[in-house]
Protein backbone atom coordinates (compact mmCIF):
# COMPACT_ATOMS: atom_id res chain seq x y z
CA UNK A 1 0.00 0.00 0.00
CA UNK A 2 1.40 3.39 -1.00
CA UNK A 3 1.15 6.74 0.71
CA UNK A 4 -2.23 8.33 -0.04
CA UNK A 5 -2.58 12.09 -0.12
CA UNK A 6 -5.97 13.55 0.69
CA UNK A 7 -7.94 10.43 -0.30
CA UNK A 8 -10.94 12.19 1.28
CA UNK A 9 -10.68 14.83 -1.50
CA UNK A 10 -11.13 17.63 1.03
CA UNK A 11 -8.64 19.89 -0.76
CA UNK A 12 -10.23 19.30 -4.17
CA UNK A 13 -13.71 19.93 -2.80
CA UNK A 14 -12.58 23.18 -1.18
CA UNK A 15 -10.84 24.23 -4.40
CA UNK A 16 -13.86 23.52 -6.62
CA UNK A 17 -16.09 25.30 -4.15
CA UNK A 18 -14.04 28.48 -4.64
CA UNK A 19 -13.07 28.37 -8.31
CA UNK A 20 -14.62 27.38 -11.62
CA UNK A 21 -11.80 26.19 -13.87
CA UNK A 22 -13.90 25.75 -17.02
CA UNK A 23 -12.07 27.29 -19.97
CA UNK A 24 -9.60 29.07 -17.69
CA UNK A 25 -5.88 29.67 -18.12
CA UNK A 26 -4.29 28.69 -14.82
CA UNK A 27 -0.92 29.34 -13.24
CA UNK A 28 -0.05 27.03 -10.35
CA UNK A 29 2.87 28.17 -8.20
CA UNK A 30 4.52 25.42 -6.17
CA UNK A 31 3.03 22.48 -8.06
CA UNK A 32 5.58 19.95 -6.73
CA UNK A 33 4.97 16.60 -8.41
CA UNK A 34 1.63 17.67 -9.85
CA UNK A 35 -0.40 16.12 -7.04
CA UNK A 36 -3.00 18.92 -7.05
CA UNK A 37 -2.60 19.77 -10.74
CA UNK A 38 -4.08 16.45 -11.90
CA UNK A 39 -7.21 17.06 -9.87
CA UNK A 40 -8.33 20.24 -11.62
CA UNK A 41 -6.41 20.36 -14.93
CA UNK A 42 -9.04 18.36 -16.81
CA UNK A 43 -11.47 21.24 -16.33
CA UNK A 44 -9.09 24.05 -17.38
CA UNK A 45 -8.23 25.30 -20.87
CA UNK A 46 -4.52 25.39 -20.06
CA UNK A 47 -2.33 25.01 -16.98
CA UNK A 48 1.18 26.37 -16.48
CA UNK A 49 2.59 24.74 -13.35
CA UNK A 50 5.90 25.86 -11.87
CA UNK A 51 8.14 24.79 -9.01
CA UNK A 52 11.73 25.65 -8.04
CA UNK A 53 12.50 22.01 -7.12
CA UNK A 54 13.71 19.92 -10.05
CA UNK A 55 12.82 16.51 -8.57
CA UNK A 56 9.13 17.35 -8.23
CA UNK A 57 8.92 18.74 -11.76
CA UNK A 58 10.66 15.66 -13.16
CA UNK A 59 8.11 13.39 -11.43
CA UNK A 60 5.24 15.61 -12.61
CA UNK A 61 6.41 15.37 -16.23
CA UNK A 62 6.84 11.59 -15.97
CA UNK A 63 3.37 11.16 -14.52
CA UNK A 64 1.54 13.56 -16.83
CA UNK A 65 -1.62 11.70 -17.89
CA UNK A 66 -1.92 11.21 -21.65
CA UNK A 67 -5.25 13.04 -21.79
CA UNK A 68 -3.67 16.17 -20.31
CA UNK A 69 -0.75 16.36 -22.75
CA UNK A 70 -0.81 19.65 -24.60
CA UNK A 71 -2.98 21.17 -21.91
CA UNK A 72 -0.55 21.15 -18.98
CA UNK A 73 3.06 22.35 -19.01
CA UNK A 74 5.52 22.06 -16.14
CA UNK A 75 8.47 24.39 -15.64
CA UNK A 76 11.36 24.07 -13.24
CA UNK A 77 11.70 27.75 -12.35
CA UNK A 78 11.45 30.09 -9.37
CA UNK A 79 8.36 32.29 -9.42
CA UNK A 80 10.39 35.54 -9.48
CA UNK A 81 12.16 34.41 -12.67
CA UNK A 82 8.92 33.20 -14.22
CA UNK A 83 7.17 36.48 -13.41
CA UNK A 84 10.02 38.58 -14.79
CA UNK A 85 9.68 36.81 -18.13
CA UNK A 86 5.87 36.88 -18.27
CA UNK A 87 3.49 39.35 -19.86
CA UNK A 88 0.89 41.09 -17.69
CA UNK A 89 -2.73 39.90 -17.68
CA UNK A 90 -1.90 36.37 -18.84
CA UNK A 91 -3.83 34.15 -16.40
CA UNK A 92 -7.43 33.84 -15.24
CA UNK A 93 -6.59 31.90 -12.08
CA UNK A 94 -3.37 31.71 -10.07
CA UNK A 95 -3.03 29.03 -7.39
CA UNK A 96 -0.53 29.46 -4.59
CA UNK A 97 -0.34 25.80 -3.70
CA UNK A 98 1.04 25.70 -0.16
CA UNK A 99 3.83 27.86 -1.54
CA UNK A 100 3.52 31.39 -0.14
CA UNK A 101 5.09 30.17 3.08
Amino acid sequence: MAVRVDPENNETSALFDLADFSGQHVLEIGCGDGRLTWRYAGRAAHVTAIDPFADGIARARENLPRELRGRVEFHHIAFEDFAAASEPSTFDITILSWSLC
Partner: protein
Amino acid sequence: MKPEGMVHALEEIQRLLRPGGSLIDIHPVLEAPLIKVYQGGRVLFAEPSPAYDYEEVLRQAEDALAQIVQRRLFVIERNGVFDFLTHGPSVAELRDFWAQAGAYSDSPKDEAVTAREAELYARVEEIMQATGPGAEVVGHERARIARLRPVR
Protein backbone atom coordinates in the same frame (compact mmCIF):
# COMPACT_ATOMS: atom_id res chain seq x y z
CA MET B 1 9.23 31.39 -0.64
CA LYS B 2 11.48 33.70 1.34
CA PRO B 3 9.61 36.08 3.67
CA GLU B 4 10.95 39.24 2.01
CA GLY B 5 9.70 37.95 -1.31
CA MET B 6 6.11 37.24 -0.27
CA VAL B 7 4.67 40.72 -0.78
CA HIS B 8 6.59 41.18 -4.02
CA ALA B 9 5.32 37.79 -5.24
CA LEU B 10 1.74 38.83 -4.51
CA GLU B 11 2.30 42.11 -6.40
CA GLU B 12 3.60 40.12 -9.36
CA ILE B 13 0.64 37.74 -9.22
CA GLN B 14 -1.67 40.75 -9.37
CA ARG B 15 0.17 41.91 -12.51
CA LEU B 16 -0.09 38.48 -14.16
CA LEU B 17 -3.81 38.06 -13.50
CA ARG B 18 -6.36 39.21 -16.03
CA PRO B 19 -8.99 41.70 -14.82
CA GLY B 20 -11.70 39.69 -13.09
CA GLY B 21 -9.25 36.83 -12.42
CA SER B 22 -8.71 35.04 -9.12
CA LEU B 23 -5.88 34.16 -6.80
CA ILE B 24 -6.45 30.96 -4.85
CA ASP B 25 -4.16 30.75 -1.84
CA ILE B 26 -3.80 27.51 0.11
CA HIS B 27 -1.61 27.40 3.19
CA PRO B 28 -1.59 25.66 6.58
CA VAL B 29 -3.35 27.27 9.54
CA LEU B 30 -1.35 28.38 12.55
CA GLU B 31 -1.50 25.14 14.50
CA ALA B 32 0.65 22.04 14.79
CA PRO B 33 -0.36 19.15 12.54
CA LEU B 34 -1.48 15.97 14.29
CA ILE B 35 0.17 12.60 13.89
CA LYS B 36 -2.49 9.91 14.14
CA VAL B 37 -2.91 6.17 13.92
CA TYR B 38 -6.04 4.97 12.13
CA GLN B 39 -7.48 1.53 11.79
CA GLY B 40 -10.64 0.96 9.81
CA GLY B 41 -11.54 4.64 10.10
CA ARG B 42 -11.11 4.65 13.90
CA VAL B 43 -8.54 7.00 15.47
CA LEU B 44 -6.37 5.00 17.88
CA PHE B 45 -3.83 7.70 18.64
CA ALA B 46 -3.42 11.44 18.00
CA GLU B 47 -0.74 13.85 19.13
CA PRO B 48 0.54 17.19 17.82
CA SER B 49 3.76 16.93 15.86
CA PRO B 50 6.71 18.26 17.88
CA ALA B 51 8.38 19.23 14.60
CA TYR B 52 6.02 22.16 14.04
CA ASP B 53 8.70 24.78 13.56
CA TYR B 54 7.27 26.94 10.76
CA GLU B 55 4.87 29.11 12.74
CA GLU B 56 6.96 32.22 12.10
CA VAL B 57 6.92 31.79 8.33
CA LEU B 58 3.16 31.15 8.41
CA ARG B 59 2.70 34.40 10.32
CA GLN B 60 4.80 36.18 7.69
CA ALA B 61 2.59 34.73 4.95
CA GLU B 62 -0.54 35.89 6.80
CA ASP B 63 1.04 39.35 7.22
CA ALA B 64 1.93 39.54 3.53
CA LEU B 65 -1.66 38.70 2.56
CA ALA B 66 -3.02 41.25 5.03
CA GLN B 67 -0.67 43.86 3.62
CA ILE B 68 -1.76 43.43 0.00
CA VAL B 69 -5.41 43.53 1.04
CA GLN B 70 -4.78 46.69 3.07
CA ARG B 71 -3.08 48.24 0.03
CA ARG B 72 -6.15 47.34 -2.05
CA LEU B 73 -4.19 45.21 -4.50
CA PHE B 74 -6.60 42.36 -3.77
CA VAL B 75 -9.88 41.87 -2.00
CA ILE B 76 -10.71 38.59 -0.26
CA GLU B 77 -13.93 37.25 -1.76
CA ARG B 78 -14.26 33.97 0.11
CA ASN B 79 -12.26 31.76 2.42
CA GLY B 80 -12.54 28.55 4.34
CA VAL B 81 -10.64 25.85 6.19
CA PHE B 82 -10.30 22.16 5.32
CA ASP B 83 -8.65 19.05 6.76
CA PHE B 84 -5.75 17.68 4.76
CA LEU B 85 -4.78 14.09 5.56
CA THR B 86 -1.82 12.08 4.31
CA HIS B 87 -2.11 8.34 4.98
CA GLY B 88 0.97 6.13 5.16
CA PRO B 89 1.30 2.37 5.56
CA SER B 90 4.29 2.90 7.86
CA VAL B 91 6.12 5.72 9.61
CA ALA B 92 9.18 5.23 7.39
CA GLU B 93 7.17 5.42 4.16
CA LEU B 94 5.23 8.49 5.28
CA ARG B 95 8.39 10.31 6.38
CA ASP B 96 10.19 9.36 3.14
CA PHE B 97 7.23 10.71 1.20
CA TRP B 98 7.30 14.00 3.10
CA ALA B 99 11.06 14.31 2.60
CA GLN B 100 10.65 13.74 -1.16
CA ALA B 101 7.86 16.28 -1.29
CA GLY B 102 10.14 18.86 0.35
CA ALA B 103 7.94 19.10 3.41
CA TYR B 104 10.87 19.48 5.80
CA SER B 105 12.61 22.82 6.26
CA ASP B 106 16.29 23.11 5.40
CA SER B 107 17.19 24.69 8.73
CA PRO B 108 18.60 22.32 11.37
CA LYS B 109 16.11 21.24 14.02
CA ASP B 110 16.57 21.76 17.72
CA GLU B 111 17.99 18.59 19.35
CA ALA B 112 15.16 18.43 21.87
CA VAL B 113 12.58 18.65 19.07
CA THR B 114 14.34 15.90 17.14
CA ALA B 115 14.33 13.70 20.26
CA ARG B 116 10.61 14.34 20.93
CA GLU B 117 9.84 13.60 17.29
CA ALA B 118 11.79 10.31 17.42
CA GLU B 119 9.95 9.36 20.61
CA LEU B 120 6.56 10.15 19.06
CA TYR B 121 7.24 8.09 15.95
CA ALA B 122 8.57 5.19 18.05
CA ARG B 123 5.25 5.19 19.95
CA VAL B 124 3.32 5.33 16.68
CA GLU B 125 5.26 2.33 15.39
CA GLU B 126 4.60 0.39 18.60
CA ILE B 127 0.87 1.09 18.36
CA MET B 128 0.81 0.11 14.68
CA GLN B 129 2.65 -3.16 15.39
CA ALA B 130 0.33 -3.96 18.27
CA THR B 131 -2.73 -3.13 16.14
CA GLY B 132 -1.70 -5.33 13.24
CA PRO B 133 -2.74 -5.23 9.57
CA GLY B 134 -4.81 -2.30 8.38
CA ALA B 135 -3.22 0.26 10.71
CA GLU B 136 -2.18 3.51 9.05
CA VAL B 137 -0.15 6.48 10.23
CA VAL B 138 -1.79 9.73 9.23
CA GLY B 139 -0.49 13.28 9.11
CA HIS B 140 -3.47 15.55 9.74
CA GLU B 141 -3.03 19.21 8.82
CA ARG B 142 -5.62 21.94 8.62
CA ALA B 143 -5.33 24.39 5.76
CA ARG B 144 -6.85 27.73 4.90
CA ILE B 145 -8.05 28.36 1.36
CA ALA B 146 -8.97 31.82 0.12
CA ARG B 147 -10.10 33.36 -3.15
CA LEU B 148 -8.81 36.85 -3.76
CA ARG B 149 -9.71 39.18 -6.61
CA PRO B 150 -7.17 41.62 -8.00
CA VAL B 151 -8.18 45.27 -7.81
CA ARG B 152 -7.20 47.54 -10.67
